[in-house]
């Protein structure tokens, strides 16, 4: 099995006024190359802290994080790791640094010191990959939230990373913006084979993932394919999360005494199961 990122027995704490606030303790997880992982968990469960450990923004106080075998705590790998593991945050406004879309997307490659022609190529490719090429001469502050977030993603893609860590990228967007961004993320995974680690509050975004991790109190409480994870409604609810709507509906029906198979997570599956049940009744 080929892992792009390995987190090994990591502990991490924040220093607040010389007091240590432990967030993660002896935490281990690894991410397979090319996979699509969704991380769920209530506010304060340590998701963002984990995300920032993955590209060396946070350094473990004990244990190690490896990206393609490179230790994130070593200064000589600093830039290379950030290039390979791109990171997109919640608020697109706070990630864009230039006043013109294409100039913003160029920021990463410019920092990496590529030739102007190569920078141009990367910028054009990245903007096409997120469907924002037609907006390349626009000012970011005049774009919609979803468009801004796609530009932010392009800014990372232009560094040609192997892995993309997205920390609640859709949390500040309207439904349309959310859909656009999710479409782009899925496409990057499928077509460019970029490993995706997506942190989110929306259960429906987890349904199509290869793997779902549920965190609570700085620990992994569930880890597996979505079907498996969502068939443990009690643990999900204890962790302060909701089930995806189809799963919740089936769960309620089961509680009321109806019989359904496990692992219904998508709308289609739910519709089919209900159809079958209804035709059997008649």
């Amino acid at each position, binding site marked *: 099995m080929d892992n792009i990122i390995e987190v090994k027995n990591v502990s991490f704490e924040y220093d607040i006024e010389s007091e240590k606030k432990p967030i993660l303790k002896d935490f281990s997880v690894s991410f397979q190359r090319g996979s699509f992982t969704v991380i769920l968990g209530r506010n304060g469960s340590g998701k963002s802290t984990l995300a*920032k450990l993955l*590209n060396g*923004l946070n350094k473990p106080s004990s244990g190690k994080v490896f990206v393609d075998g490179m230790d994130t705590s070593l200064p000589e790998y600093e*830039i290379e790791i*950030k*290039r390979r593991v*791109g*990171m997109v*945050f919640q*608020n697109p*406004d*706070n*990630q*864009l*640094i*230039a*006043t*013109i879309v*294409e*100039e913003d997307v*160029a*920021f*990463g*490659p*410019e*920092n*990496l*010191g*590529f*030739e*102007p022609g190569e*920078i*141009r190529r990367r*910028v054009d490719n990245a903007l096409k990959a997120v469907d924002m090429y037609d907006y390349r*001469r626009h*000012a*970011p*502050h005049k774009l919609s939230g979803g468009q801004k977030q796609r530009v*932010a993603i392009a*800014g*990372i893609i232009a*560094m040609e990373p192997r892995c993309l860590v997205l920390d609640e990228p859709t949390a500040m967007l309207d439904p349309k913006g959310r859909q656009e961004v999710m479409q782009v993320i899925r496409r990057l995974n499928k077509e460019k084979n970029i490993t995706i680690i997506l942190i989110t509050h929306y259960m429906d975004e987890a349904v199509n993932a290869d793997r779902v991790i549920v965190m609570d109190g700085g620990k992994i409480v569930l880890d597996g394919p979505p079907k498996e994870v969502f068939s443990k409604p009690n643990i999900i609810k204890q962790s302060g999360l909701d089930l995806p709507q189809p799963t919740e509906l089936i769960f309620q029906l089961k509680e009321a005494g109806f019989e359904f198979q496990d692992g219904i997570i998508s709308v289609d599956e739910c519709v089919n199961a209900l159809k079958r049940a209804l035709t059997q009744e008649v």
Partner: protein
Amino acid sequence: MLKDITLGQYYPTNSVLHRLDPRLKLIVLFAIIVFIFISSNVFSLAFLILFIALFIIISKVPFKIYIRNIKSIVLIIALTTTLNAFYVDTGTVVLKFWNITITSGGIERAVFMTIRIILLILSSAMLTYTTTPTELTYAIESLLGPLKHLGLGNAVHTLAMMMTIALRFIPTLVEETEKIMNAQKSRGADLESGPLLKRIKSLLPILIPLLISSFRRAYDLAEAMECRCYSGGKGRQRMKQFKLGVRDYISIFIVILLIASILVINYLYSAGIIYLNVW
């Protein structure tokens, strides 16, 4: 009201002016500003007006966009015009009521000042319409380049980066200020009436949230920049490279022509070879 700030409002039209080297444009703007102030007679001023009008046409930016800029400073124009008209008392008396006299010299000066201010606004607006802020900061960084030899390279880069970020965040912060103001108003805050001291005090509930959120933004932005491999100016490249091209040389030639013409006109005027007398 706040939305009217046009600082750094790029207007893409893909004209020749847009494609000129930003360093050249910056230098030409400085030259034009100097000439606006040394054009001391009707002829050289008329010449400048013609020239700037030509530039406006070449820029392909709609004229009403320029007008919008002038509208925002109409008050300042009116004030300087009246003050000049009242205070200058050379020439013949044109108008007299109570103890106020308006002289031909005063009117002349007022007209000159008005035209100068308008030309000043038009030409600097032209620069911001045809040049992206990033290009502008690049121009400043590049023109300050010689300072690098004095060991100030890092300072020059930092200055340019700060300008880029400031320009990028002005609209965001303006928008945020409006949001906070509306939020406070809807809670009954009275921001627009009362004595000055009270109005200044009522700004606190706006400034403090703005300050706090700016710190949040600064922190986020620093992390985002780090994630994009930013580590200062060392080893950084630029996507856009500016090399002086044929276009730029032609412009330099035209500007030198402009300088020469104004100097010649000024000389001819002061030597009394050309003159205009409307009085």
